[in-house]
């Protein structure tokens, strides 16, 4: 109490308890997994320790009298444009620990968000807008390789498609739940994603944690992931899903592997991941059998062989400087879907410096990949999916206008089920029962409630997308795909406009 290391003195938040309203019911004590609230025996009342508060707002949300407010700590350092409090606290912490700084969730850094500098077009007079409440509005999307040309043959039963179309994923909305592994998030949420995806007619992604045996029944709405650690990968797993995704990179930490701490590996995670209970599950940064596009090609076709060419194979990379060339190679290696994950993408844990300083905004990578594939005449060989920090339906529709076929959402989905981006996922003590496998915490996510909230989220975005499409005079999402004429930049310089391939507003 009297002496604490300097790193613990400058806490980020303060707990404001309205004593007039506090009834000492201890709900906050029971809900705080960081023990910031406690029963003070000496004072015979509930008390708190500001230094332990991570700003998750769980206590505030559940306080039955609304007597709690979590506030930013008003105490601050002397103004200094270079040595901001963030960097000073990093230094205090590293002075304490000598270790790498670790962060949960995507980068909060103040780098440009290009979605906010793009405006959508709207129809007026000559090409009237469409009322989605009265006219059909098509959001259905198919992901997978499309043929160069389509041949039709006449049969006694009428015209039929002669060209054989490769395996596709059918989506009723141009959105999917992004890869979040069983282990990094718990079974309740995996089940909720599976239930919601099934209800919505979309897919969710297992991440690299394997697929729990009880979730195989949702296979038609599941993308099974093969990452460098190969956790939980076996023939039945590969054949369980609607598609297979090879994860090469992740937007939040390009070039970095994964590390699920042993504390998060309980019996069920162990069975599903095929690793011993309590042992750390480390995915190496590289796949140790992929050192070239040819190696990637071999893995893609090994997976296609294993699944008898029934499901599309996707390859996910982080958005990096030469993403366009990499994506071209991936498509030529036989991938049916290319996923580009921008640096805003979330994660359970990433080295803070990597998270905030490596990778590029997904908007720029997407525009460049779409351009390159078009220039090479191979855009139809694969579908493009973007991920990383999609916050709303407008971001989705802008991504599609910029060239994406569909969008992965993850952080938005977690926020819909309660996440407050407190960024302590790596501690395994997530107070909202999301990034935790602790028995008493994980049950805070009731799959029925979570599935309903996820379903509501996607349906709400679907309605908004239909409204926006109608406003643009379009009646299908297909008509918008890669239609950059429906976008205009605001406050962007010529280089940025050139990379994005859009005109400035007013032109």
């Amino acid at each position, binding site marked *: 109490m009297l002496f604490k290391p300097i790193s613990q003195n400058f806490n980020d938040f303060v707990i404001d308890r309205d004593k007039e*309203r506090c*009834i000492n*019911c*201890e*709900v906050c004590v*029971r*809900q705080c997994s960081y023990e910031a609230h406690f029963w003070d025996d000496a004072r015979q009342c509930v008390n708190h320790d500001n230094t332990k508060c991570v700003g998750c707002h769980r206590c505030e949300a*559940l306080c*039955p*009298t609304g007597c709690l407010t979590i506030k930013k700590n008003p105490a601050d350092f002397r103004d200094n444009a270079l040595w901001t409090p963030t960097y000073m606290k990093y230094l205090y912490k590293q002075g304490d620990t000598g270790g790498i700084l670790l962060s949960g969730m995507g980068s909060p850094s103040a780098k440009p968000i290009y979605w906010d500098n793009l405006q959508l077009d709207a129809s007026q007079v000559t090409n009237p807008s469409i009322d989605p409440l009265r006219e059909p509005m098509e959001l259905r999307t198919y992901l997978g390789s499309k043929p160069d040309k389509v041949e039709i043959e006449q049969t006694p039963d009428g015209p039929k498609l002669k060209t054989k179309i490769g395996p596709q994923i059918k989506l009723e909305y141009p959105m999917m739940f992004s890869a979040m592994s069983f282990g990094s998030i718990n079974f309740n949420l995996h089940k909720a994603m599976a239930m919601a995806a099934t209800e919505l007619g979309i897919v969710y992604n297992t991440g690299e944690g394997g697929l729990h045996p009880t979730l195989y029944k949702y296979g038609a709405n599941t993308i099974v992931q093969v990452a460098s650690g190969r956790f939980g990968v076996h023939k039945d797993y590969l054949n369980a899903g609607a598609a297979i995704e090879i994860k090469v990179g992740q937007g939040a930490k390009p070039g970095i592997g994964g590390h699920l701490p042993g504390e998060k590996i309980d019996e069920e995670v162990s069975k599903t991941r095929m690793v011993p209970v309590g042992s750390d599950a480390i995915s190496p940064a590289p796949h140790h059998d992929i050192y070239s596009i040819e190696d990637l090609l071999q893995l893609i076709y090994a997976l296609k062989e294993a699944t008898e060419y029934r499901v599309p194979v996707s390859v996910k990379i982080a958005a990096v400087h030469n993403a366009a060339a990499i994506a071209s190679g991936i498509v030529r290696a036989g991938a049916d879907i290319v996923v580009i994950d921008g640096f805003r993408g979330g994660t359970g844990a990433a080295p803070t410096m990597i998270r905030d300083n490596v990778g590029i905004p997904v908007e720029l990578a997407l525009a460049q990949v779409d351009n390159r594939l078009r220039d090479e005449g191979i855009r139809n060989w694969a579908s493009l999916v973007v991920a990383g920090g999609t916050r709303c339906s407008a971001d989705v529709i802008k991504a599609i206008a910029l060239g994406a076929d569909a969008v992965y959402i993850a952080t938005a989905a977690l926020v819909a089920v309660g996440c407050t981006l407190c960024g302590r996922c790596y501690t395994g003590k997530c107070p909202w*029962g999301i990034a935790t496998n*602790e*028995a*008493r915490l994980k*049950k*805070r996510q*009731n799959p*029925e*409630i979570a599935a309903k909230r996820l379903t509501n989220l996607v349906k709400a975005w679907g309605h908004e997308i239909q409204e926006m499409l109608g406003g643009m005079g379009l009646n299908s999402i297909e008509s918008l795909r890669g239609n950059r004429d429906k976008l205009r930049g605001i406050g962007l310089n010529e280089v940025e406009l050139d990379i994005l391939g859009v005109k400035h507003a007013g032109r």
Partner: protein
Amino acid sequence: MRRVYPNKDFCIGCHICELACLTAHSESKDLIIAVREEQASGLRPCKAVYEKGPVCVSLSCRHCENPSCVTACISGALYKDEETGRTMYDERQCVGCWSCLMACPFGAIRRNQAKGKIIKCDLCEGRDKPACVEACPNAALSYEDR
């Protein structure tokens, strides 16, 4: 008949059901007044959350088909309402012998030591849904006919 069913898999041990019960049975219908003032004069929640490690469950009267508590009650304070199927309790008649408490196989009847009588769930008579079910933040309590 419809009963309150707890689900231990999703009970988060917040005890908000107890506070909701307390408020619903208070005169003021105000949580702060109920806790600070009415508790002092003997108001108690009809349900209790039991916890052991990560397992917790919110328990209240099961309103059994053939309730042992009714058989055990020496004063006629507990009786079965034939119309609604609920096990009812008339506090005025209770003599605080605790026979019902001993007989209940669920431990769902509790002592109200302030009053020297028992306390048990009445399914919030007059409400569509018991207050505890409405207040549970994780839908760990359901009010249904099984």
